[in-house]
């Protein structure tokens, strides 16, 4: 089945769950844990979400989860080497569309949340670390546990592009005090880098604007409630 590995995707919803407004963000694992627990608490008690309201699920994600995600960096990682060939306006448009796509897709999954619980694994980190992996496991009654990991960095926005050649300098342009999630890995599959080939396919066919248009088209279809194209 070509859907062979899609079981990982079933849990994508939970991947986006790590939401957290005023969360304890002193350490990255505390941050992810607090937000996850907050969101699970809401999902378990919210009647709209339980009855399948995507709209309410999107609101929840926007409020609680997204403030802790670095979407510019995520988009940069998804677009890959074409990122530095895009103008700042194109980069902003890409990040906005990518964000909409992920939020909409996974808020749908959130509404089908049933009785899963989340276990966190202890995080080994040095106080000087700026890039860490927080690991957790989703347990579902009658199913195999699914590994769910988060990459977090003390970084705001994308890494800067060099003025010539498009190489990415090693230094972060905008290190921040707080931790931001830049990738979510479900059962070993990175939600962000899994888009790289698809995006570069679109860029080869229609340039950066072609990719932006494809994303806009898909988002419009999903907003209109059309069944997803093949």
């Amino acid at each position, binding site marked *: *089945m070509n*859907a062979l590995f899609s079981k990982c995707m079933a849990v994508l919803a939970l991947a986006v769950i790590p939401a957290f407004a005023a969360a304890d963000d002193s350490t990255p694992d505390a941050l992810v844990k607090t937000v996850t627990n907050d969101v699970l608490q809401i999902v378990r008690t919210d009647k709209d979400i339980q009855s399948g309201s995507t709209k309410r699920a999107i609101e929840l994600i926007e409020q609680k989860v997204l403030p802790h995600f670095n979407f510019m960096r995520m988009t940069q990682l998804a677009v*890959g080497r074409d990122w530095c060939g895009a103008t700042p306006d194109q980069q902003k448009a890409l990040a906005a569309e990518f964000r909409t796509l992920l939020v909409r897709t996974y808020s749908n999954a959130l509404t089908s949340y049933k009785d899963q619980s989340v276990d966190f694994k202890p995080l080994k980190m040095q106080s000087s670390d700026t890039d860490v992996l927080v690991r957790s496991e989703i347990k579902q009654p009658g199913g195999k546990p699914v590994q769910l990991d988060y990459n977090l960095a003390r970084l705001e926005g994308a890494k800067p592009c060099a003025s010539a050649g498009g190489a990415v300098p090693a230094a972060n342009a905008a290190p921040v005090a707080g931790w931001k999630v830049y990738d979510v890995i479900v059962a*070993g599959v990175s939600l962000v880098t899994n888009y790289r080939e698809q995006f570069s*396919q679109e860029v080869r066919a229609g340039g950066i604007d072609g990719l932006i248009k494809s994303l806009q088209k898909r988002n419009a279809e999903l907003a209109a409630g059309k069944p997803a194209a093949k």
Partner: protein
Amino acid sequence: MIRSKKSSSNGLKRSTLAIAAAVALSGCAGSNPKDPLEGFNRAVFSFNEGLDKVAIKPAAQAYEAAVPLPGRTGIANFFGNIGDLWIGVNNLLQGKPVEAAGDLGRVLINSTVGIAGLFDVATEMGLEKHEEDFGQTLGRWGVGGGPYFVWPIIGPRTARDSLGFGVDAVADPVGYLGNVPARNSLYGTRLVDTRASLLPAEKAINEASLDKYAYIRDAYLQRRRSLIYDGNAPRLDDDAALDGGLPTVVQMNPVAAVSQLVLTRVNQAPVREASDR
């Protein structure tokens, strides 16, 4: 995912030939180094999607509607138990005797206390279920994935994992059932059970992907890499990976695997350490 060794129908063979011919005529140069047969693979992918739509998915939906969750869990446990022995053999081949012993313990407990595997008592007792196959063992030994294929019905496999799948099929106890109708019923039930477990994920994939073929291919390749590392794969260098390099494979040759097997004591941590490099 069907695992039949001998049950390919003539109709299917003919369709496969037709696909191959169509692809040969249209030419199938792929620009992706991981997927040199992309044209062919896309044709088989569409064939699989079509077959799924008319036959396998409806069967899985009917199964889900007819059998309540505890029943489905029991059936999934039953097939899981059948697979645990071979998983243990693979753990041994990968130099992980502690895990292998756990797998053997699972089989012993679940086959008896768990009533022929219908109940996964071992997990509740703290014996974790592993996911291993011969393709992963080859990967551990340092065999690279090679070109990506999409097989009719079976679905995505790299060249290495296609070979591994063949060995897995030979080792599959179901294939040794003398009673052919019973054997085929087990194959069929396992296929439907697997497909049913994928139903919830399908919508998310359909919505999230711009190109479903590429999305599934890349997810498959990432997933296999993660499995070979037993879930501890190091993150690929993002800045270097922007040039589209192949996923790196764990390097561990058979000699190293065997010597680890000999040297390793009860502590499993050093095994992980060494194999990650």
